[in-house]
């Protein structure tokens, strides 16, 4: 386990470093992305010289005037080797070193756009996202489990439900969310739910807060549940059907157990393996939020933080958010491995 954690940490560091270097080298943050060139009527248009001066000052304040990495490569000089690029050593005064040093001290930097520490932005956005992604993930997993068990018993309505699930699976999330909005929050149809936001929960506590939150987050949660449910259910149901063809099931039947008892007490544990991978995938998704849902329902969570940071080229925020998701992804792999070992003791024995 320790080896796995160390390998994962090293992988996370390498991936984060690659993202850092690629993002900054592909498009250096310039005035355009930080508002200096933005067309704003009523404000004075800067001349080219003023823009250049402002850009230099901005880059200097943000530390972007420094070289990107410890070394850089430039075109070979005429005297030197014909094909070998020239290596220029920059020492520790580079952007990567500063970023890595800050990160090791637990600091993710400061947003270019508003000067707020990235950790604070993440700490604000993450709970808002978890507020609807965690219940949605739990509800989807629970519903998938219930539905798959019922479907595995091959009731008469199984083909209808399976077809419906496939149909649901084919609907993209943005369309599903819009459909829910147009049906359940539309003055022309039903106005059961609010169209956007999380409401004003100021001064609310306990049951009132819960009711208010549920009222505002019901449609976003429903969108996520409906989009996650088909995949989980169909996979689990298929795995259960496979298990039901095994010899031990025949033995159980011969012993007089009902199909429900067989599924719950025998086949479910074996059929759950494919589901573990899918559930492990839910963890980073839960943290990353769903950009589409957050945009459509105007929810300020991790998804929007990420997409806004990418649009504005706010690298510290972008990297901070990606780092959190990256860690979640690696943790989910570790947890999935552990879950496999618990579910199947044979794996534990083979690794010891």
């Amino acid at each position, binding site marked *: 386990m320790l080896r796995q954690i160390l390998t994962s940490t090293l992988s996370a560091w390498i991936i984060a470093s690659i993202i850092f270097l690629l993002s900054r080298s592909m*498009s250096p943050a310039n005035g355009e992305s930080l508002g200096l060139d933005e067309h704003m*009527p009523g404000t*004075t248009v*800067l001349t080219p010289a003023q823009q250049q001066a402002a850009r230099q000052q901005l880059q200097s304040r943000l530390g972007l005037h420094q070289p990107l990495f410890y070394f850089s490569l430039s075109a070979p000089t005429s005297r030197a080797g014909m094909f070998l690029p020239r290596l220029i050593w920059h020492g520790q005064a580079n952007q990567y070193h500063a970023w890595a040093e800050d990160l090791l001290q637990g600091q993710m930097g400061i947003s270019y756009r*508003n000067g707020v520490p990235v950790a604070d932005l993440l700490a604000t956005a993450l709970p808002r996202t978890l507020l609807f992604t965690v219940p949605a993930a739990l509800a989807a997993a629970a519903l998938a489990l219930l539905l798959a068990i019922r479907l595995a018993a091959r009731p008469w309505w199984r083909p209808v439900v399976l077809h419906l699930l496939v149909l649901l699976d084919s609907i993209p999330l943005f369309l599903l969310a819009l459909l829910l909005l147009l049906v359940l929050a539309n003055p022309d149809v039903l106005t059961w739910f609010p*169209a956007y*936001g999380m409401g004003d929960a100021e001064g609310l506590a306990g049951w009132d807060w819960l009711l208010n939150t549920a009222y505002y987050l019901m449609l976003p949660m429903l969108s996520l549940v409906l989009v996650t449910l088909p995949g989980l259910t169909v996979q689990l149901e298929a795995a259960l059907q496979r298990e039901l063809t095994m010899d031990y099931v025949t033995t159980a039947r011969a012993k007089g157990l009902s199909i429900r008892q067989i599924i719950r007490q025998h086949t479910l544990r074996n059929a759950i393996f494919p589901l573990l991978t899918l559930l492990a995938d839910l963890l980073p998704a839960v943290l990353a939020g769903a950009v589409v849902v957050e945009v459509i329902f105007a929810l300020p969570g991790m998804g929007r933080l990420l997409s806004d940071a990418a649009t504005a080229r706010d690298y510290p925020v972008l990297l901070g958010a990606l780092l959190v998701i990256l860690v979640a992804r690696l943790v989910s792999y570790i947890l999935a491995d552990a879950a496999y070992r618990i579910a199947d003791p044979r794996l534990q024995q083979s690794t010891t």
Partner: protein
Amino acid sequence: MNRYLSTCGVVLLLLLGCRSETQPVDNVRIRWPRDPETLHPHTLANALAIQAINLTYQSLLAIDAPNQRIVPWLAEALPVVRQAGNTSYLTYHIRPAATWDDGQPITAQDILFTLKTMRCPNLPNERMRATYGFVRSVQLDSADARHFTLVCDQFAPDYVLTSGDFAVLPEHLLDPKHQLRAFSLKGLDSADAKSPVVAAFVGRFSQARLEQSPGKYGSGPYRLKSWQSGQRLVFARKKPWWGDKIVPTPAPLLARPPQISFHIIPDQNTAFLALRRGDIDVYSSLPAPYYQQLASSATDQKQIALFAPDSYEAVTVGFNTKKPVLADRLTRQAISHLFDIPTLIKATQQGLAYQSASLISPHDKHYYNDSLAPVAFSPARAVKLLQQAGWQQQPDKSWKRPHRTGQALSLALTISYRAGDAAYEFSALQLRTEAGKLGIPINLRPTESSILTQQLQAGEFDLYLRSLIGNPFAHNFLPLLHSGSTGVNGGNYTGFGNASTDALLTELAAAQDTVQKKQLLRRLQRVLQQESPLTVLYFKRNPLAISRRFTDLGLSGLPPGYEATRFLVQQQP
């Protein structure tokens, strides 16, 4: 178990369905597409931030948008301008009634302090440093603390508005120890950011967290009550506020709604639903199809009033004049004739736009050159112009002309535009269709916004489609058309310009006399139409939907198109 769950679900749905919210009728709720990010008055991050900053802070001058004129705000009157040699002097007097929230008077020292904070190193003030570099010093009046003169570089017409267009900050709250008084205005330009005095001031100033608009530092009529990042910003009216003492209240000092809130709804569909449900009162830049939908709905019309004031946003097509294929004006004119602009306006703007022959709006009767005709859709004229330009159509319908290098040039073009914009996409497709009929291949290149800017600056394009946003107060086209504004730092992407046009632009930028400015502008418009470095396709309107609860909306062509501080609740009959 399942029955229990379903019952719970139904009960919950019914419970939730019964919820309703009531809002006071005189509060104004405005839809914003995104968070303003920062409300720091020196950063001016975007147009939304400026709208909010203007509620909490005040500058010496303001723009009376409905009447399109500059008016005094904190100042008692427009500045008195005096010129001597290469120096200009702009003298102001602050309104005697103007005070900070704690009752302290707003003085010339506050103006000087604000200018210094905009020049101080290591603060997020790069735009301000660049903009206000023309102010050399401030002459204070020992006899009158509210009287002062800005000593500036050689006069330019822009200085009148610019000299009074910055949020004034209180020195006694942000620099109680007067640390910045040790520096002159010019001295701060070269001050070392590491010097103990500067570092101490920067530390203290940063602690004020102006990004979050803490409220007590602005003299404006509103205070930020709450800011739920990414959700909403609520501004509450200050009571009492110093502007209330001025009777009758001039338009810039009107602050009627007790509360103005901005609701951040990124998605247009959701915002439209929210408007129709009555969750928001104002939706500006309403997509044209929604505007038409509301216009045809009698039910919605009872609650929502629709407006489409002019805007200063022009959609243009630019030509890379440095490319051999587009180096001559006849070819550029020919390509311009392949845009069917009335169809574009109908299809992409649902009629909410109008044609123009130049960069000046045709509704600006004074400066618009009405002797010019807008570019007409005419493939036949395009063919003639191409032939005049030396292009010869080949048997395979393609166009070629000899080049001085000896190799024949082929007429094949690429059009670049911001990806994801349906109007640009349609315009580019229309050009490709019409040009294709003549045998001119057009390649479409939708590009991500900031990459597109980089490509335009580097001259890596043939044609581009983009919006230009102007205003009625500035006729300085130097950054857009001067030959010195090309390259990485300029806005002259077309590469247009020669000694003659540069001289015309420089003269226009310095023109103070209205008659002279009118003559120069008309000349410039003629030159631009002849040379066609860029062609205006149309000027957009700003479709607006506002709740019928309100009257006196202060509609104008300047974004956001309305003045929320003026909104008056309509008396019910």
